[in-house]
């Protein structure tokens, strides 16, 4: 799994790549929750191949923490297989999801 952070004028963009499963979820949790207090945060999942239920849990923790702190969060560029995992678990309505980084940044501006 790779995690890259890009501080932009409109907000922080964290790009994640690889598989998010029980082996990598801990690392992602640390990396993402460190930014839960960001006023504007975009998580770019364009390079994510797979998300397991352990991975979903990380995004749920993030959206709860972000909301609690009054921050704005958007996920973007979910591959169809990844989107399906969110859909199946019924969690899609809990997130702001956009097709790409530009749209995500615009949405939370």
């Amino acid at each position, binding site marked *: 799994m790779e995690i890259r952070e890009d501080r932009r004028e409109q907000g922080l963009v964290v790009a994640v790549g690889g598989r998010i499963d029980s082996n990598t979820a801990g690392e992602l949790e640390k990396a993402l929750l460190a930014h839960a207090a960001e006023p504007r945060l975009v998580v770019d999942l364009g390079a994510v191949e797979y998300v397991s*239920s352990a991975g979903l849990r990380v995004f749920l923790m993030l959206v709860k923490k972000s909301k609690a702190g009054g921050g704005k969060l958007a996920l973007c560029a979910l591959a169809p297989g990844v989107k399906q995992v969110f859909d199946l678990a019924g969690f899609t309505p809990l997130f702001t999801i956009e097709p790409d980084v530009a749209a995500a940044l615009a949405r939370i501006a």
Partner: protein
Amino acid sequence: MSETTPRADRLQSLLDVSMALATQLDLDSLLQVILDQARAVMEAERSTLYVYDAPRDVLVSRVSGGSAAGLIEVPLGKGIAGHVGASRELLNIPDAYADPRFNRDVDKREGFRTRSILTVPLLSHDARLMGVIQLLNKRSGAAFDAEDEVLVRAFASHAGVALERAKLVEDALEKQRIEEGLRLAHDIQMGMLPRHFPSSPVLEIDAALAPARSVGGDFYDVLERRTFSDQPPFGKQDGKIWFAIGDVSGKGIGAALFMAITRTMFRAAAGAGAPDPAAVLAQVNNELAKDNERSMFVTVFAGLYDPATGVLEYANGGHNPPYVLRASGALEVLPNAASPALGVMEDLPFSVARLELGPGDALLAYTDGVNEAQNTRGLLYGTDRFEAWLKTALVRPVPELVASLMAEIERFEEGAAPADDITVLAFRRLAS
């Protein structure tokens, strides 16, 4: 006769020490032996032993000889012990107060005056850091000299390997304790699942759960509904059946506990006269979501089935939609009443849907252990294979259908230990 030199005495004590170390497998006793012997052999006023906690990258003082100080934690690289741990080199400081790395606070706190400090790393047989031993003030009043350095190195090489071995033993025992705990948790978990199901001339129902090697978080439940009134006999069964199948995110003790709580809450909500499955899921969700810091969640498909009419009311909290097996031989995916998985946030909406089973129609619910089963070559069982198999088997009586599906998955796995629990629950409306 030969004259016994102090040096020979000290070598003799070193030999005694290595024998004492070699026979000591219990970690706490070993630490005490190392500490006491180090002080005696090195003729020091005080000795402190730090054990290296690798995951946290800190040195922890397990025992502090002759001192009232409690547990001290030193990050690797900080202070004298931390410096020796990081560099893995012996450090001999003749005058502590002249060394900037020396922290005088401990002396101040304890009314002790540190003069000289000899610090040496304890390494495993393959040179991994196991700990650090620190000796304060040679009793003669002189600083530690070159001979002391040779002696303490020899001492440390024995102590390091003894410590390594004792830690291996402790880890193995700990692992054994955890495995026993997990086995127990698993037995309790399996014992909670109902094995006997309501029977009626118009109903066939069965369920099975094959646990993964580690404790997982699947469950199923089936119970006859009771309705309540303020007239005797107050509560009576009305022939309808509550059922649920669920899968907790993650594995291990946490998942097993979460599963047990979910199942208990399902029973409570269904037993307390909740009007429909959506109300049950909403109630269970609210209970689970309180104080759920870790955002664990559980997918649950729950239903209330009336065997007399074939009417099924159901709600789906993020679970794989079950299949409807028609008497005609057609296989359908149950139209999804998609609601979120349970446990994440309070007050989420759950919707209820209805379906009528005709005579001979059946419903088969499962957890993703079925379609995500893997064989020894890493091949996934998959939805296509699952549906193809179901089409060939869907007319079988329910108990045979459930048993043969479990056997089919086991055959596919070719002996690979299941990575996830595999659970199936099915029932059919029989023609009256």
